[in-house]
């Protein structure tokens, strides 16, 4: 597999009880790509994203992160906890509800994994963390605790926390869905900056104009199937399926 492939998903299927949430999904994300996953709620888009770092275990299929298989080893056996953690570290995830650790201040939320997973020296990790805080516009909040931050600030810290592990791919699971409308813009602006810097990202979102501006590949999921994939211009201006046309009419 060429090294320029950040994420490679082959024939991924998953069911919850009797409901098939993903059916034979194939997706390639090249290094530097920004892929947005669109779809109605319940279409399986969050599940797909959460399979990429094995927070959900697919029933069938394979996922490779930068050429390395996640979750199962080459003989198809489940990975041990340590091996799984090591592959997971190649991905960074930003959650809908931020999921910061409330007992640690902003700086330590960011340095925790670099120090205790990568074994980075503390001063080096903190220097890097302060650079990342500057990047997300929160240099003055290093010592603040998550409980004192607004939703938009929390999400920007969460982005910095994920970036601190220098992942091969950033995964965003509806990063603005839990935010007050006036705070959405500051988070989207940070993600746009990252795409301009060449970060590889897979983004599940409901923000249509953002998806159009930021991505170079749009994937539309319906009932667990990829029904359309295209560059953003074709997707939004000339959707080829009636399903996507209907979706776009409803999401103006």
């Amino acid at each position, binding site marked *: 597999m060429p090294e320029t492939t950040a994420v490679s998903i082959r024939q991924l299927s998953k069911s919850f009880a009797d409901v098939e949430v993903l059916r034979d999904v194939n997706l390639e994300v090249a290094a530097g790509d920004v892929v947005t996953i669109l779809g109605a709620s319940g279409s399986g888009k969050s599940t797909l994203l959460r399979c990429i770092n094995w927070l959900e275990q697919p029933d069938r299929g394979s996922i490779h992160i930068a050429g390395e298989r996640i979750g199962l080893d080459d003989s198809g056996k489940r990975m041990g906890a340590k091996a799984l953690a090591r592959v997971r570290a190649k991905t960074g995830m930003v959650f809908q509800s931020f999921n*910061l650790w409330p007992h640690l201040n902003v700086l330590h939320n960011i340095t925790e994994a670099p120090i205790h997973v990568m074994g980075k020296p503390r001063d080096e990790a903190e220097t890097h963390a302060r650079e990342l805080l500057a990047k997300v516009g929160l240099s003055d909040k290093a010592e603040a605790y998550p409980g004192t931050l607004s939703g938009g600030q929390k999400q920007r810290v969460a982005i910095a926390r994920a970036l601190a592990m220098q992942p091969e791919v950033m995964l965003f699971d509806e990063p603005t869905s839990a935010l007050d409308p006036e705070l959405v813009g500051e988070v989207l602006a940070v993600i746009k900056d990252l795409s301009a810097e060449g970060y590889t990202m897979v983004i599940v979102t409901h923000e249509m104009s953002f998806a159009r501006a930021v991505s170079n590949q749009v994937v539309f999921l319906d009932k667990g199937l990829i029904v359309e994939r295209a560059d953003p211009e074709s997707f939004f201006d000339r959707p080829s399926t009636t399903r996507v046309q209907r979706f776009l009419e409803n999401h103006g």
Partner: protein
Amino acid sequence: MNASAWQMLFDGAWTTLWISAVSIAIGVVAGLIVALIRLARIPVLDQLLVLYISLARATPLVTLALFIFLSAPTLGIGLDRSVAGILALTLNTTAFNAEIWRSGFRNFSRDQREAAMATGMTPWITFRRIMLPQMMITSLPGLINEMSFLIKGSPAIAVIGVVDLTRVTNRISAVTYEPLPPILVACVLYMMIIGALVWLQRRAERRANRLAT
């Protein structure tokens, strides 16, 4: 009450305090270990621990203390009274603490655990760096509550001859024929110890609530 009676009372209070403190210290850590082993769901061991917890929670402290003290010699173990007392209190409080820790685990935020795993933390690092520091704060009110139950139950060890704060009042009144003054002082001393714990518990609760928001 004369000077030697006061001295005896304070000695009794000291005995109650140190025996309880040792049992609490061991019991809090042992309870965490029992909770961790139970979460690992190791067959047989898990059933044994369930049996231990239900037995220890169902047995009165007096009975447990007597049982340990009297059964030790038949097993060929010579047990000091204080050690037998500590063992009885520890076996009792460990079972309750294990349940407190276990509910701390069960109620721990799944979101925070996922965030930890997503950064590449192993389950052990997640436990040590993310869960335990918060569980120590959120479980503390329950643990302190159990500590004060233990201290109030500690006179049970008098049954095997440990001269604790309650037992000593008997000894004093056997000489003075005035049972009321020593027991009154003992009550005040117990209230001071428990009062200190209640004060600690209130502070712990405030910290736990701050973490929750």
